[in-house]
């Protein structure tokens, strides 16, 4: 079983890499989509327009396979634009049913841009879709296949009713435009994306396999540490609703699964960061939960962990993985990996494990140089 978990986690890690190739600083969104899908939860992305939110969701969805539905909501969006029109043939028989063909109720993955602009009728119907995976409208009452919904907005709503709807998205991710120093990378990556399409590796089944195993994960061992973290947050004035606290356990279990383990550990507590609903609370949590986040670790979700923890530990894991590939399989150019390592760490602050990998890489580069300088 452990072997299966490892294979699945590796498959999903490859999926994220392929789907976010060329996208600067957006890997954490792709990774949180996986985490949410495994935990049967949803993601809310908060950030300015034009920050590649929909592109990431679309590419991850394409890579997963399955049906995808995307819509930009406006104040005048009709429910039928999302859920489908009234079925006229049934209406003639006096039954008000919705023809959901190709619409949101048939989607595996959905992206709803400007989600809070939806009317009360839309948001009420969405509540049922998100919470219970049921679509109810008129005489129509369907179990829907929705695995994951990603909502997007420019800013969190202040209205209480909308805030309650925002609370249904357990994971909140705040993103910014690409910073000045990464503009060249953005341009190069954008060009690359224009020329390529995300290839499906049909990982939806693998994802569903993990989802069915969430309840098998033993989270008892971290319950006390989790409660301690919540108390620390409350002590700092950060209030989490009981519902979010309870549901966060599913995210912790999903993080353990994506780490290929059926035993949750303290290193799996990091999703608490994304459960905090506002950007201010997330920033505060980095200080309050520094101890818990310092040990955060997940090879499958490195960017999400790195963003939450703001600690080099997850960066170290990523670099060590690259080093391993360069040393073992030759998939990575050793000199490129060394450049990446040296750009991330100075000689004085390099973690021991990475230092060891670096020594081996230097030896490999020197051996390659010697080999190339031998006269033919």
């Amino acid at each position, binding site marked *: 079983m452990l072997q299966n978990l490892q294979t699945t986690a590796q498959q999903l890690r490859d999926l994220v890499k392929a789907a976010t190739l060329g996208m600067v*600083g957006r890997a954490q969104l792709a990774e949180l989509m996986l985490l949410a899908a495994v935990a049967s939860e949803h993601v809310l992305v908060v950030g300015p327009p034009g920050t590649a939110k929909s592109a990431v969701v679309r590419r991850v969805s394409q890579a997963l396979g399955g049906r995808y539905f995307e819509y930009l909501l406006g104040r005048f969006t009709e429910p039928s634009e999302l859920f489908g029109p009234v079925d006229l043939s049934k209406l003639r028989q006096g039954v008000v049913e919705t023809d959901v063909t190709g619409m949101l109720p048939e989607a595996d993955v959905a992206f709803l841009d400007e989600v809070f602009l939806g009317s009360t009728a839309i948001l009420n119907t969405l509540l049922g879709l998100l919470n219970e995976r049921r679509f109810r409208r008129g005489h129509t009452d369907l179990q829907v296949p929705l695995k994951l919904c990603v909502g997007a907005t420019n800013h969190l709503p202040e209205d209480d009713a909308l805030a309650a709807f925002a609370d249904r998205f357990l994971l909140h991710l705040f993103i910014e435009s690409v910073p*000045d*120093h*990464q503009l*060249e*990378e953005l341009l190069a990556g954008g060009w690359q994306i224009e020329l390529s399409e995300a290839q499906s590796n049909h990982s939806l089944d693998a994802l569903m396999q993990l989802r069915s195993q969430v309840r098998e994960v033993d989270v008892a061992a971290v319950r006390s540490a989790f409660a301690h973290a919540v108390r620390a947050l409350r002590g700092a004035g950060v209030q989490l609703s009981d519902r979010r606290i309870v549901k966060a356990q599913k995210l912790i279990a999903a993080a353990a699964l994506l780490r290929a383990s059926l035993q949750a550990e303290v290193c799996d507590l990091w999703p608490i960061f994304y459960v905090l609903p506002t950007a201010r609370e997330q920033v505060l949590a980095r200080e309050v939960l520094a101890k818990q986040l310092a040990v955060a670790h997940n090879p499958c979700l490195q960017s999400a962990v*790195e*963003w939450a923890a*703001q*600690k*080099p530990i997850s*960066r170290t894991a990523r670099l060590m993985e690259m080093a391993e590939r360069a040393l073992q399989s030759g998939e990575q*150019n050793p*000199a*490129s990996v*060394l*450049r990446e390592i*040296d*750009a*991330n*760490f*100075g000689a004085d*602050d390099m973690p021991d494990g990475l230092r060891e990998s670096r020594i081996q890489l*230097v030896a490999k*580069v020197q051996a*390659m140089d010697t080999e*190339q*300088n031998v*006269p*033919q």
Partner: protein
Amino acid sequence: MIDVHWRPRLSESLRPQAAVAFGDAALRLCEQLLPKSDNSEQAGTGARAAQSAVAQTGTLYACVKPALIMLQADERDLPWLDGIHYATRVHAQLWVPTHLQACMVAGGGYDPIDIELLANACANSGGETLLWPDPALRLRLDAPMPATATNVQRIHAHLFGATASLPERLFGATATLPKRLQG
């Protein structure tokens, strides 16, 4: 006045946009950038292609005291050598090490310095500046040179050859050793 302290960068890693080499590493960087002999070219490594790309798109700065070379180029073309460092542009006119965060003392700890404030403090009459922690340098990047073989040879000769005593003004960068920056 700003007292600049440096600590390991905990947040996002910055993409390298320049290689910075001091002393012996600068010498080896020069040698790597110099045209190779026929034998080594036959080896057909990626290094040759990268060297060619650097010659076309890279920009060089050099400084005599301390002996320093800065090579700006696309990340994929930047060379790796044991002992060289990497820098990135964090503001239109400011370059800093990729792995360090410039900080100031605040409330018993260190807080990152606002990049705009730091760039203003390092202002160089419209030109670019490289701010470096060890050795502590504020380097004016005044005269960019294309990273052509001729320029590399010229720098190599001036820094490490018999003509090392030529005037520093021939070089594209001048260093000062700041204790404090005007904020």
